[in-house]
């Protein structure tokens, strides 16, 4: 999220579980060069752990057959890769054009107050993290937020209350 310049150790060794191992092997056959697997492998690692630790980066490098620095470079460039743990519920609010016109600020302000978080922060109990992101491709149903990847459209404070009440 905010600081994208550092890796953090999880203190745990990392390897793919068997399902992800199989998916890695299926995908690698689709590309003529191994480097093409860095991004898919980072996704698999993040899906498994929730974020990308030093160990996960090193593991991806080893599986793909490249340098950890190369993997780290991609992990920092692409903003959806989390270089530190996010909340159990990761809330992304679109801040761009159509959502801006449709009062996304009310959504951000409400969530920030309710969760006691500024965009970029994770709550102390690890339950919530809040992020402002760029256009999510749902501009016709603005304002929109994403919770752990799932879209919630035409948001307003009432709908946010119901949504938050359902997260525990």
């Amino acid at each position, binding site marked *: 999220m905010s600081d994208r310049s550092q890796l953090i150790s999880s203190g745990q060794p990392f390897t793919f579980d068997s399902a992800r191992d199989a998916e890695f092997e299926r995908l690698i056959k*689709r590309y003529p060069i191994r480097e093409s697997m860095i991004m898919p492998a980072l996704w698999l690692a993040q899906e498994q752990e929730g974020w990308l630790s030093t160990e996960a980066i090193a593991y991806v490098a080893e599986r793909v057959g490249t340098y950890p620095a190369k993997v780290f470079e*991609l992990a920092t460039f692409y*903003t959806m890769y989390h270089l530190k743990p996010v909340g159990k519920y990761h809330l992304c609010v679109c*801040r761009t*054009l159509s959502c801006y016109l*449709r009062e996304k600020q009310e959504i951000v302000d409400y969530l920030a107050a309710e969760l006691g978080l500024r965009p970029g922060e994770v709550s102390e109990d690890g339950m919530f993290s809040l992020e402002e*992101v760029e256009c999510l491709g749902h*501009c*016709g149903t603005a304002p929109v937020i994403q919770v752990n990847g799932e879209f919630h459209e035409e948001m307003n404070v009432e709908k946010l209350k119901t949504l938050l009440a359902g997260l525990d």
Partner: protein
Amino acid sequence: MEVKILSAKFDIEDSHRLEVAKKHGAYGTLEKLFAMDPADVIEEVKNSGLRGRGGAGFPAGVKWGFLPKDLDKPIYLAVNSDESEPATFKDRYILVRDPHMMIEGIIICCYAIGSHDSYIYIRGEYTSQLKILQEAIDEAYEAGYLGEQVAGHDFRLDVTVHRGAGAYVCGEETALLESIEGKKGQPRSKPPFPAVVGLYDCPTIINNVQSIASLPFIIEKGAEAYRAYGTEKSAGTHLFGISGHVEKPGMYELPLGLPLMEVLNEVAGGVWKGRQLKGVIPGGSSTPVLTPEEAHTVTLDYESMAEHKTMFGSGGIVVLDETVDIVKLVENLIAFYHHESCGQCTPCREGLGWMLKIIRKFIAGDGREDDIELLLELCDNIEMKTVCVLSAACTMPVRSYLEKFRHEFESYINSSNSDPVQSQAE
């Protein structure tokens, strides 16, 4: 006004499932396709007048014709499903409501250009959309529409989804290729164009999802049937995304060439809350804004947009009502492009940051008279001095706001007490 060519199956329940899609004609063009000569397929697409729907509007068949002949290298098709231009949300409907139409389009394109490997580059945020798309591809493999022998013909085709991870610039075609190759999404200098040196240094065609999804209709019904919609130079239909301050925002399929205001009023319910119109962004955030007067004369096609010194772009129309603070809107826009700059070209990386600082000075009440000129000068110094046009996608609209709504910038300067000497003298 609405038509249902691309969106024919959108309202059918479970239309993303092969079984349902097939009942409604999916993969129905393949027999005809494989009986055709690939060169004739390209000719048909050229004749249809189909222009790229990713934003630039380049004729699809013409681009395919740029592939070198008899080169001893594989040819790739990359389908651009990055859909990250603010105010654009059309391709998503194809991905989730009729993915088989797109897969059928991929088969048509690959057969025409002689490609056996296609990658669909989907933006990382489309999670449930990715799942639906992948399921559709898996179904197509199982049913024999993809794989070693497409629909029983001696033609191999593999389709692989490559997931992005939150970088707008990867919608730019060469950044997209870099990303598939496992690199940062930093655009390449052109020439060479991807049709000659593309993915893995091989000839590559990049087309937008909607361009590809338009192919089954063209092959099934013929170029003339496609040309029956739209205008001479802007043939066919488009999935328009209408957002912002209208009563009924949403995605509407319309033939090209309709008057913008008629569409806004009759299809999208007009400006919301009975308010007045301040401006219209016609084709995604990177297209120059239209004033209400211009909005009343423009039609939704490439020619008319060019005559009005703006662009058709992605067909993402944004309506601005009278309450919009143009200066703050411009701040929002510059912040987007600054954040999304890939960082490789100094004018874009640094210049957009300077523009952001200056616009924030206005908002903080510290704007100076010559800051408007400074912004315009920066636009000139950034535009066309970078590898790709991401920077121009910012400076072109910003210049249009500065020119057409200059008074709003000036009123920020005049209302601020930025000159302490003068305020003391009063």
